């Protein structure tokens, strides 16, 4: 029962956020880039629901447009790391031996590398851009997926139903696609759901540091960066972007948790290993 409630609430929240992002041009009351010299730092009102920023731009509209960046970075980078992680995890567990060692040690190296540091380095080499942010997050996020896929496949490979398929003459490709992947997908899906909020946070942090998506494109991260000087006298400036980061992270965590319970996975399955069967 509880799992259904968290899954349900989480999914509703995500659907709500995605709708806001997609319909941003329709819902937004103002142009997110239009500045106004006389209306700067106004508190929330019926005209500016979330107030205005230091340049007189409408924060409500900017938050909506920011959602587009945050959510697409979060989801796209999760998608990419899911793809890379699943592929490498499968290869490692399936071929074992040297392939396994090479892939998993590489994954360890990536895993211990602070993603923020990597981002800072890469951004200083290339120009900061949206695709670079996605690439950095995906590039550091895949090892955890790969580990999970690997451990799931290693566990499933020992199962009777895989032996049974082999007895019928199933070759590797069939075993992987029909038997291993469909059964490994549950815990991986949960992990992927939990990757999204991490990616949203990373994007926000990078943008906050000025290394992410560059102004004038509004993102929650660079709005927070702008707001930090005005925290004491314009609470709304930082509050609304921050609140949306929170809601997004919360929604995906709720969904992941709900999914985990709905799929009947134990607490540890999330981390990649399960006791017994």
């Amino acid at each position, binding site marked *: 029962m509880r799992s259904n409630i968290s899954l349900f609430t989480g999914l509703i929240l995500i659907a709500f956020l995605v709708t806001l992002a997609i319909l941003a041009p329709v819902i937004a009351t103002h142009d997110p880039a239009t500045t106004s010299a006389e209306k700067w730092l106004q508190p929330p009102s019926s005209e500016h629901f979330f107030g205005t920023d230091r340049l007189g731009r409408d924060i409500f509209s900017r938050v909506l447009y920011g959602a587009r960046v945050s959510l697409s970075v979060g989801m796209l980078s999760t998608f990419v790391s899911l793809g890379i992680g699943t592929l490498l995890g499968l290869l490692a567990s399936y071929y074992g031996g040297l392939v396994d060692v090479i892939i998993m040690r590489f994954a360890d190296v990536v895993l211990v590398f602070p993603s923020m540091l990597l981002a800072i380095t890469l951004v200083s080499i290339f120009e900061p851009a949206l695709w670079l942010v996605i690439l950095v997050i995906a590039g550091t996020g895949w090892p955890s997926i790969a580990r999970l896929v690997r451990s799931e496949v290693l566990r499933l490979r020992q199962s*009777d*139903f895989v032996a049974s398929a082999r007895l019928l*003459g199933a070759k590797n490709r069939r075993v992987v696609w029909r038997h291993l992947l469909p059964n490994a997908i549950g815990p991986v899906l949960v992990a992927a759901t939990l990757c999204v909020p991490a990616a949203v946070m990373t994007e926000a942090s990078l943008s906050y540091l000025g290394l992410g998506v560059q102004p004038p494109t509004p993102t929650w991260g660079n709005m927070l960066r702008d707001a930090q000087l005005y925290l004491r006298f314009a609470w709304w400036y930082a509050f609304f972007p921050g609140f949306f980061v929170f809601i997004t992270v919360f929604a995906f965590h709720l969904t992941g948790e709900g999914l985990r319970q709905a799929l009947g996975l134990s607490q540890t399955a999330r981390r990649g290993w399960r006791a017994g069967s």
Partner: protein
Amino acid sequence: MGNLLEVKNIVYTYGRIAAVDGVSLALGDSDSLGLVGESGSGKSTLGRCIAGLLTPQRGRILYQGKLINGRLHKEIQLVFQDSFAALNPRMKVEALVEEGLIIHKTADKEKRRRQVREMLQTVGVDPALLSRFPHQLSGGQRQRVALARTLILNPRLIILDEPVSSLDVTTGMRLLSLLQDLKVKHNLVYIFISHDLAVVRQICSRVAVMYAGKIVEIGDVEAVFARPVHFYTKLLLDAHPIPDPEQRKKINIRGEAADLLSPPSGCRFHPRCPAADQRCRRIPPPFVEVTDNHRVACHKAISS
């Protein structure tokens, strides 16, 4: 008469544990072999070696005179003890039964569907269950689906690894009579792994008794059951309840199953055997022929 299956002195070890330690047996065209012994005696491992799921470290397995060590053979199939674990939880009954046909590309879609339906009827599963998942079936239905899955490839030799031990008694009995029918109808040879002697007696013509990775007695079911020679076989038969208390004679056998990490010297059963002497403790007993087809690995078999 050539042998359908010949197993010659195979050894399979898990790490330091020899689960199967030098087993030989031969199976004729119309034999069905019961493999009995307590948990850990190596019967399942032997079954998996024959099925080709495990490759024995030593010895040879011949099927129709051809060496098949560690190789799967379309005509040799295995039905697992736990039908729940043996069926992919994400596949429906139809896909499960159809899988062998798809792999071997034997027919087009239409013909496959028909074959699947016929096969389900053969094993007594209502075709209405075609789109059910394994967890939506009863234990008996699951085991029948597992059976249908292997039968669809027209196997010759089926290894049944305690197929009824997870079912309740009546369901198990019905599955057994189905197995008997199928054996005749499809000309099948079974290797029936079980610890239930009555079941082995019902299904099989021959029986092999395993203890601590070795076969200790092998022979025709009637002969072995009527005149067991090895003390371990006597123990097994004695452990099986006999309805008439007048007929019961207790043999006093103590101790626990042999430790496979350091198996007893000589005859592996000697620490528990009431008749063991110096020779049993030192020298592993050779196989001796008691009567036709009835062979025992026991020093006392000759002297008694």
